[in-house]
């Protein structure tokens, strides 16, 4: 009964289990195998609150095209057991074509949302099967079954198994192979799922990377060589990737005692002439805001990556939301011009973070990068990012000529003043969070304050951000205006509607602050409909847009908080049917 269905380009599946069943490991192997087979893919994970042994699910979407969003529905769910599986109900849309495979005889029965749903079912007793294989594990059996169901070439899965288990030795590899083989064999008895065609031709030039790794790499590409940070979910992987990576390229990462320390250390390192970064999430960013203001006033470049999670407060640390936008824009004391940028895909985490280093260094001001959990903790097979020339280029000072005086905060046309690297003779100055005159001497005078406010504002207002302020795609007089991780589902919706009467275009803002008012006005020209899409509860992005540009009166607004992802179908429906009133 295992027949290939119609010619599909993407397949989505969930592998779930509890108590150390190894579903995440198996998910990673599956993604790696898919990559070897020439597919693209995206893997996210969901888990219970337990540190170890909790219920976990690997959510994968594999495709012959690059994957930019979580799917509208799942083709296949394999549960090694059903313990606490209800937790994932909201995250796993099912329909009548979904195939659900689990152990019908297990002590904990299949949850109602599965049994009462429309899906087709198959029954595999993973436990008994694995016991029959020396060293066998249920997750490897499931892997074999999935591979067979979706058309994953055996050699690709085999190679991924060998890579992943190389350190465990031949016996472990052999046991896993045997498990996968058993899984493959039983797949024939299961209801059929679509099969992905194995792509022909060139498969080179692809990377397997997470958004957090991509952000770390972008930072290093941009010239960051000093990082100080405090661990926080979901940003920690940036730090764990960067720590050894920095050491290799002559940089250093310091684990700080808290976020107050990490941002101040980063500012200290940058003051010393070494491009610097810290990474955190919302609660950490809240602690950093005073020092980010210091970096604005003292004109020290620094990059802060905020991998956003559900808020307020501790919120939902392992789930995504775009609700730190207001904080990134507005939390600094005083009038504090700074940069806020947002990557719009896992691949773009490389570019945007690299660009942020360039912006911070060129303008000598802090740049906040708003990534989020959906990008950061997702792993994806992507086309290798382009090699971009953006690199930290700080305008530095040289020893002044005899009789001339170095002025750290000299008033210039661009607002950017040469910044002396400590050690440069004749340029010693004190960087200060107090308002100051061009020499850097503290001053509370109106004239100095106005001149320095203007100078700092000029730096970010007059900078040429080029085409990078936004990504634009599609055609039509309906414009979907969005940012960050909402971009993926919007793009997919636009793709699906391309060439139809509902064809639309997208403007995804990479540059959030300073608000690219003119560029945005131009991009929206001629739009008959404007739909704003964001993942917040209060409409922070809409508020920001309204504060900065004239939006049409009847602008539509798709605004949902986390933790559920925005799916392409949501956007497609919106474009087709309008915002429900």
């Amino acid at each position: 009964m295992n027949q290939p269905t119609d010619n599909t380009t993407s397949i989505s599946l969930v592998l779930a289990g509890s108590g150390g069943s190894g579903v995440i490991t198996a998910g990673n192997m599956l993604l790696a195998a898919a990559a070897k087979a020439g597919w693209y893919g995206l893997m996210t994970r969901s888990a219970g609150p337990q540190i170890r042994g909790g219920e976990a699910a690997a959510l994968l979407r594999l495709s012959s095209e690059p994957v930019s969003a979580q799917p509208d529905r799942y083709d296949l769910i394999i549960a090694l057991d059903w313990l606490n599986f209800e937790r994932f109900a909201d995250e796993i849309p099912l329909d009548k074509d979904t195939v659900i495979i689990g152990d019908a005889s297990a002590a904990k029965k299949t949850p109602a949302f599965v049994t009462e749903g429309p899906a087709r079912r198959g029954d595999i007793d993973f436990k008994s099967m694995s016991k029959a294989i020396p060293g066998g594990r249920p997750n490897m059996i499931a892997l074999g079954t999935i591979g067979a169901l979706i058309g994953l070439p055996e050699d690709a899965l085999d190679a991924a198994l060998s890579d992943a288990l190389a350190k465990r030795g031949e016996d472990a590899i052999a046991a896993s192979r045997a498990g996968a083989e058993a899984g493959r064999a039983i797949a024939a008895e299961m209801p059929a799922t679509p099969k992905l065609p194995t792509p022909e031709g060139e498969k080179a030039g692809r990377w397997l990377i997470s958004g957090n790794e991509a952000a770390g790499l972008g930072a290093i590409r941009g010239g960051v060589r000093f990082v100080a940070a405090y661990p926080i979910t979901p940003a920690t992987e940036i730090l764990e990737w960067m720590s050894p990576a920095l050491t290799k390229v002559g940089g250093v990462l310091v684990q700080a005692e808290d976020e107050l320390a990490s941002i101040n250390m980063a500012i200290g390192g940058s003051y010393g002439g070494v491009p610097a970064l810290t990474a955190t999430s919302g609660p950490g960013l809240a602690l950093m805001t005073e020092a980010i203001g210091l970096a604005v006033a003292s004109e020290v470049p620094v990059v802060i990556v905020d991998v956003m999670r559900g808020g307020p407060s501790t919120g939902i640390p392992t789930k995504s939301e775009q609700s730190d936008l207001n904080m990134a824009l507005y939390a600094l004391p005083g009038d504090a011009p700074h940069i806020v940028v947002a990557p719009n895909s896992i691949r773009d985490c490389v570019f945007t973070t690299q660009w942020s280093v360039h912006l911070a260094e060129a303008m000598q001001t802090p740049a906040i990068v708003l990534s989020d959990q959906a990008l950061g903790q997702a792993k994806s097979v992507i086309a290798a990012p382009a090699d971009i020339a953006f690199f930290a280029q700080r305008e530095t000072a040289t020893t002044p000529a005899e009789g001339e005086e170095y002025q750290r905060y000299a008033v210039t046309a661009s607002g950017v003043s040469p910044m002396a690297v400590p050690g440069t003779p004749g340029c010693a100055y004190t960087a200060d969070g107090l308002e100051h005159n061009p020499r850097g001497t503290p001053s509370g005078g109106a004239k100095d304050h106005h001149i320095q406010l203007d100078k700092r504002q000029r730096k970010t207002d007059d900078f040429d951000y080029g085409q990078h302020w936004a990504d634009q795609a599609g055609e039509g007089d309906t414009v979907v205006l969005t940012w960050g991780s909402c971009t993926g589902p919007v793009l997919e919706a636009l793709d699906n509607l391309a060439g139809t009467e509902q064809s639309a275009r997208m403007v995804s803002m990479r540059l959030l602050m300073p608000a690219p008012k003119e560029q945005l006005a131009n991009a929206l020209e001629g739009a008959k409909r404007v739909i704003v899409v964001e993942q917040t509860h209060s409409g922070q992005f809409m508020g920001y847009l309204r504060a900065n540009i004239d939006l049409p009166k009847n602008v539509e607004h798709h605004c949902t908080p986390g933790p559920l992802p925005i799916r392409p179908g949501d956007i497609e429906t919106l474009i087709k049917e309008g915002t429900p009133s």
Partner: protein
Amino acid sequence: MTAETALAPKHSPRDYKSDIKPVWCPGCGDYSVLGSITKAFSELNLDPENVAVISGIGCSSRIPAYTDCYGFHGVHGRSLPLAAGLKVARPDMTVLVASGDGDGFSIGGNHFMHACRRNVDLTYVVMDNRVYGMTKGQASPTTEPDWDNALTPGGSGISPFRPLVIALAAGANFIARGFSGDQNGTAKLLKEAIEHPGFSFVQILSPCVTFRPDQKTWKDDVHDAAVDPTDEIGRAARRLMTDDGFNTGVLYKGEREAFQPPIGEATATVADLEGKFAL
């Protein structure tokens, strides 16, 4: 004596002073501490451009602008991480951190412990006057519990903090106490502190003539430490726990290696890093 053959330093103490005039009250101990700092720099033959003076907020934290070295006047309580970032990124710089009892022990208390622990090669000078001066005289962590003031009338009722004991427990590599009234003695302490590897903590009793005129008697209260510095932590602990707070001199000298991860030595290219992601 060997003095005849001693070479004069390249720079006089005055060469380390900027032309910015301090805002401190006349009579403040911090003027003298500034003198001790510049004397120490001069004796160490440091070029002003290779020295950075880092601070937070408070009277004593105004020091960076009064020197002709590189400086950073940061936010309240965060001078130590600011300085640690600079030193780790630029190990070639001599970094001195100036703070007060409010900035260093209250709002910056957590960083104080971790700076001791981390042992970056910094010299941390805390001018302790047991009062908040910039905000007009409130109790600080080192203030006597019965000191009457507007914010805590009748006194805070809270036991004062013992910074030297905490520095020792947290792992500081050098612990000393000086008195602003002894500018030359304090200069010597600072020179030793700067020369000693790792985190050096120097508490300097520096009277506030405006809000604590009673502290003028400190000149009679201070006395040289009766014994030489120890490197034995148990003895140091006993000494610091039992002293009267006016014992001056180097009180502890440890031998822990300073925290300085290598920087600037690349063994791979960015392309090598990227290679790990390529399929």
